[in-house]
């Protein structure tokens, strides 16, 4: 039984990796499910059991993380960044960003500058959990500067 679970988990991980690689492209859930060799409905259900969220939400958080990165690191407009990370309407992007991060994209840019950390660290460490499920501590903080990799804040990470 356990070997079957291992095999399923490994295939789901491969599909999740595929979403991470192609986050900016339109989500083709059937193609992603095919990476795991399972049906679309079974994929959505089991992905949620194994990773704790739907594939759609997982992809949204990756896209929002990448948009946070571009807001911090570049001068590109919010509209350009919205399209860069795979959203096709500014309204959906702004709503999703606010729902997940707890602030508007422009506010995030104002409060955060470039982060001196390797990209893979940023992708892992700064991918937002959904704001509604955690206290909005960030709201109370004064204009925080991004941590530099290697300083105390980053060192506290696992």
């Amino acid at each position, binding site marked *: 039984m*356990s070997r079957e*679970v*291992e*095999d*399923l*988990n*490994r295939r*789901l*991980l*491969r599909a*999740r*990796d595929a979403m*991470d*690689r192609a986050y900016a492209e339109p989500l083709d859930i059937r193609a992603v499910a095919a990476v795991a060799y399972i049906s679309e409905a079974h994929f959505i259900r089991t992905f949620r059991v*194994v*990773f704790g969220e739907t594939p759609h939400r997982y992809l949204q958080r990756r896209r929002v993380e990448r948009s946070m990165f571009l807001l911090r690191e570049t001068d590109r407009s919010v509209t350009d960044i919205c399209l860069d990370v795979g959203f096709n309407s500014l309204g959906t992007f702004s709503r999703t960003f606010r729902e997940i991060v707890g602030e508007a994209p422009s506010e995030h840019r104002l409060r955060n500058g470039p982060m001196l950390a*390797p*990209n*893979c660290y940023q992708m892992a460490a700064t991918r937002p959990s959904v704001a509604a499920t955690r206290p909005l501590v960030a709201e109370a903080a004064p204009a925080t500067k991004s941590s530099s990799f290697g300083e105390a804040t980053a060192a506290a990470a696992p």
Partner: protein
Amino acid sequence: MIKLNVTSVMVLDQDEALDFYVNKLGLEKAQDIHQGPFRWLTVRVPGNPEIEIFLQEPGPPVQDEATAAQLRELIAKGAMGGLVFQTDDARGLYETLKARGVTDFTQEPVAHAYGTDMGIRDPFGNAIRILQPAKFAQAATA
């Protein structure tokens, strides 16, 4: 004085792990000691004998069967951490890995200010990052 000597990565099958880490990634076997059901199997980077990686397969006598089953499921969903290596030629290594049949790239080589990095997974789901620090690129073009 203290220094890192052995770290470990959890794998689902030690023979398959040895094949991947030696024949695909390019490490070399260091120690391989059998003691009943326990196998102390380590690999290391050639020319870097100070640090060995223990390819640890969960199970008795170290873990009970139920614990091992939980670990195996976590390994397969990529939840057990991973390894970071450095290279002086990320793109060359990428081509070498592809030629050796590695398909599980989480990220093809990408250039950043700090260097060029890429990501792969071992056959079991463990994440491996490989970085070519920018200083190597500068040295190569200087």
